[in-house]
């Protein structure tokens, strides 16, 4: 029984526990503990992984002549770490208080835990798969587990989950087509056979494989133009479920791309694959898809008035950074892209937890209906503050390190336009997250929210923990870069020379310890000056005077509606919802075809059949001679 078998067995036990458990409180606590044990089992494998030695599983099947086996590689380990961390945090958050509240409002926390456990099991199976068949089977299981999690709330969420499902099954079928093509070419579904088959492929076939595999995985990841399902589906998932989905679920698509396109096929192969009649290569295509994925969803997030939709749109956008970094193919960029996966998971989860805490207390996530909660929910505010600094990619949080690496890589590899795209994305992110925190926590407190208290400890502790991780990995990014180096080695990419505070190489250096310490030192000096000065006086927010009136609590002075009017007005002509229009056009065509098919079975006159038969018979006769 290898450590990997132990891990998989533990996750299955967790799933069985969630299925059979009755008592809600103990269920939540037990499952959280079990996820923690799984995390420890994962860390137990860390030494082997650090040296790049994969941990195999003792289980293998032989079905219809196909071998299926599993192994934990450094890439799998990295993603599994994020998965289990997110699972621990979400399960902790969902137990006790939140679970009771959810059950009181008609939801089923038991179903949420079951769905979460299904997701964890299927994701672990996906990450550890060591052949194409196992990859596909677990890919489908992951898709359906995500559907279960999204649909578990019932009501309007089911509609968006069904929307997701169509995309997911289409992506799965694309991957299946790619796998079938590999099988037909080589007669085997092992990774080695796949790599061997690629060497003799023509450009057209290689494009086909890129589109099938890339497209299939891109659906899950939410790359443009296959991103329309993600925001609404993730936003409507109940509280911790959306945190889990936003943190890691879409990154499974990135895992697929990394495994198949980067590790097995190799970026060099796509660098030589030219788009016909243009000077662009397949890598350029991927890079620009990533760039547009950064820009467009970020500015869509800017326009959202629902906090959870805003965060979900940001989740789509940040995926673009990850792909952009990896596609650059150098040590800096790929390290940045991979680290961004980890970083994003941490602050996205923290942000979703914070928003869910606000929803728990106030009952709404509408940004136009909130404000001033910093005085009542300071811990949630701090978590959100740390989260948005991370999301915006500013020091001292970890988001800054990964974005810095990506910017450096873009400049060094000579892609000024992509660099500008990335910076525009960051600008949009900063504006958007400021809107989030301002409309929610800053400004004027509403009368109906006067009595609100902070969220209970079962919800704030995960938040605090995640914020601490965000800050700690920003201060000491070497802790994360240490795990990324074996991944880079496995993927065949150049390895970053990391240090505890960042990296140090011929391509420049970054030392976050120095940066953060000087920042904190600056804040410390500022704080000393502020508090020692003694000139400050504590005043009530409404003890103020504006426009000839004294302010009162009943009147709304909160600036929240139409937060960036000038920017929205400027960007309005560019945002015509073109992708929505494209999708609805395709759906209309399908409905037309469907009505036609129904008409055939209902009322088409048989004489038309005879005409068609005569035409076919004439063609056959003509073809026969």
């Amino acid at each position, binding site marked *: 029984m290898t450590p990997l078998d132990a891990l998989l067995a533990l996750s299955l036990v967790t799933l069985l526990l969630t299925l059979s458990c009755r008592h809600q409180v103990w269920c939540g606590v037990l499952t959280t503990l079990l996820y923690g044990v799984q995390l420890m089992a994962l860390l137990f494998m860390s030494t082997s992984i650090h040296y790049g030695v994969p941990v195999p599983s003792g289980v293998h099947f032989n*079905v219809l002549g196909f071998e299926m086996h599993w192994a934990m590689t450094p890439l799998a380990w990295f993603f599994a770490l994020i998965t289990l961390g997110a699972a621990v945090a979400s399960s902790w958050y969902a137990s006790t208080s939140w679970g009771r509240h959810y059950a009181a409002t008609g939801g089923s926390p038991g179903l949420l835990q079951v769905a979460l456990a299904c997701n964890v099991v299927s994701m672990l199976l996906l990450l550890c798969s060591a052949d194409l068949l196992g990859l596909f089977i677990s890919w489908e299981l992951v898709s*359906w587990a995500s559907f279960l999690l999204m649909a578990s709330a019932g009501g309007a969420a089911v509609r968006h989950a069904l929307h997701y499902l169509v995309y997911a099954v289409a992506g799965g079928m694309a991957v299946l087509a790619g796998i079938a093509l590999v099988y037909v070419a080589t007669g085997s579904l092992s990774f080695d056979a796949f790599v061997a088959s690629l060497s003799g492929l023509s450009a057209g076939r290689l494009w086909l494989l890129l589109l099938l595999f890339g497209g299939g995985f891109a659906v899950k990841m939410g790359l443009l133009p296959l991103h329309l399902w993600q925001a609404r589906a993730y936003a409507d998932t109940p509280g911790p479920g959306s945190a889990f989905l936003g943190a890691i679920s879409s990154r499974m698509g990135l895992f697929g791309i990394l495994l198949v396109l980067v590790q097995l096929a190799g970026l060099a192969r796509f660098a030589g694959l030219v788009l016909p009649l243009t000077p662009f290569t397949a890598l350029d295509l991927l890079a620009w898809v990533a760039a547009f994925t950064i820009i467009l969803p970020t500015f869509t997030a800017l326009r959202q008035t629902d906090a959870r939709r805003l965060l979900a749109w940001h989740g789509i956008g940040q995926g673009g950074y990850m792909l952009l970094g990896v596609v650059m193919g150098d040590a800096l960029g790929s390290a940045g892209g991979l680290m961004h996966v980890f970083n994003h998971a941490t602050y996205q989860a923290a942000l979703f937890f914070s928003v869910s805490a606000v929803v728990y207390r106030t009952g709404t996530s509408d940004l136009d209906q909130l404000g001033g909660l910093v005085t009542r929910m300071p811990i949630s505010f701090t978590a959100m503050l740390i989260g948005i600094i991370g999301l915006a990619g500013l020091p001292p949080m970890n988001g800054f390190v990964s974005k810095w690496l990506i910017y450096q890589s873009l400049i060094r590899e000579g892609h000024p336009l992509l660099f500008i795209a990335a910076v525009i994305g960051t600008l949009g992110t900063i504006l958007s997250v400021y809107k989030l925190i301002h409309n929610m926590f800053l400004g004027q407190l509403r009368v109906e929210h006067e009595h609100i208290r902070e969220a209970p400890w079962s919800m704030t502790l995960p938040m605090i923990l995640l914020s601490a991780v965000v800050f700690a990995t920003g201060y000491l990014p070497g802790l994360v870069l240490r795990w990324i180096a074996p991944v880079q080695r496995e993927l065949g990419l150049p390895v970053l020379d990391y240090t505890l505070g960042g990296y140090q190489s011929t391509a420049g250096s970054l030392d976050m310890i120095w940066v953060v310490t000087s920042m904190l030192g600056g804040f410390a000096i500022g704080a000393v000056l502020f508090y020692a000065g003694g000139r400050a006086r504590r005043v009530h927010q409404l003890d103020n005077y504006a426009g000839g009136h004294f302010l009162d609590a009943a009147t709304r002075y909160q600036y929240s509606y139409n937060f960036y009017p000038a920017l929205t007005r400027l960007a309005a002509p560019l945002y015509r919802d073109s992708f929505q229009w494209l999708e609805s056009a395709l759906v209309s065509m399908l409905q037309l075809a469907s009505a036609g098919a129904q008409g055939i079975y209902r009322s088409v006159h048989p004489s038309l*059949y005879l005409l068609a038969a005569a035409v076919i018979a004439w063609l056959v006769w003509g073809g026969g001679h």
Partner: protein
Amino acid sequence: MNAPVLMFALPLLTAFLLPVIDRLSGLAGRWIGPLVLVGNLLLGALAWPHLQDAPLVLAMGGFRPPLGIVFYVDRMAMLFAMGVALGVLLLWPAWAQDKDRVRISTLTMVLVTATTGLALSGDLFNLFVCYELAAISSYGLAAAGGSAAAGAATLRYMVISSFGSALMLIGIALVYQATGTLNLAQLAVLSDALAGPQGLIAFIFILLGAGVKAELFPVNAWVPEVYGAAAQRVAGILAGIVSKLALLIIVRLLVLVFRQPEAQQILLVLGVLGVITGELAAWRAQDLTRMLACSSIGQLGVMFVAFSIPGPAGVFAGLAVALHHMLVKPALFLLAERWGGALTRLPGAAQKSPLAAACFVLLALSLVGIPPLPGFWAKFLVVTAALGQGTPAYAGAVAVILAAAVIEASYLARVAAHLYRRVTQPLSANRQTRAAVTVATCASAALVSATLWLAPLGNSLQVTAAQAADRDSYIHNVFPQGVQP
């Protein structure tokens, strides 16, 4: 070894003796049909070990082929014969009936006879006669119940079916004129005489004739109406069982007699058209029964595509899809019997009977082709076999099949979402449909166990398909001393 002949003769005898038996004893009349079907299953199980080495060739009445009619019992034939017995037993339509019980039982026994004959026969005209017997009994079953809608739908079915039968007869006439024989083995020897345009036309006519029951594209316009108007059990029998047996005729002819590539191309094109129109029509369907009917058109289209692939790989893939469909579709129709009707009447069903809803989800997942359920493996076999041909036509067919899977997932998930929607007052179910749910649950359990024992089942099926696709051994088994002209 007369067991296979008894499998044909016993239901026929029972059918004609049923009214008398029922007059003598009502209890015997109620149970004799299912008992005979159990007997058929036992006979099949008895005969199965004898088929491991070589198929059985039974000459009827001792008249040797090619003049006499011969029953060619290979593994595929016995598999389908037992499948018929099991399927009709589980879907026995006469449990709930009172006034028409005898008539429906008689018609069902005739149907069982006819379909067993379709599976076992080795003579072309015998296949035609059994096909017609199956058709007539299915007309009777579809029109049973006395409603005008059932009558009108059956009329439409009969018009198309008679048209098809006449075409099939003309096709058989053309075959006889070209070769002078109707024995399948001798036709296989003389298949060069049918390699030209006359043979192709004969194939098309026989295809259209047999294709009526097999829900082939142009001649399947009757399907949604008949399935919508008839009893759901009858629809399950027609969709799940009879269609596969009609398909079997075409498979035998393709393997043995009509080996020209144009025949395979025509089957491919018609199969693809069936997939497209069936799945698209199901997408917008408003009631569950017609949605399942159009979905079965789509699935049969996939089977046509699979069987159009030459070689044992095609037969293997087609058999896998056919057997999987034979398990899943009747179970779905039984669940539709419980819930049947508009999709808007489905909410609350999962609250009332969570087991039935879970069965529906499992069966639907397997139908779409989600691993690790058997439906995925069947579809994977079709996709790989088709892509292995390497032509753009087959690649296009694969793209259509995968796109159809997406559409299928879309509407089946929509139905599942309706099932799991919570309502304050779930509709209570008919007491008589509880048996239907039990059978559906058994089918789901069979599906799960098929998933667990996939490797041995797959190997066994591969051997069956290889035996069925082996033309030379067919000829050799029927004529061990060579063919006498």
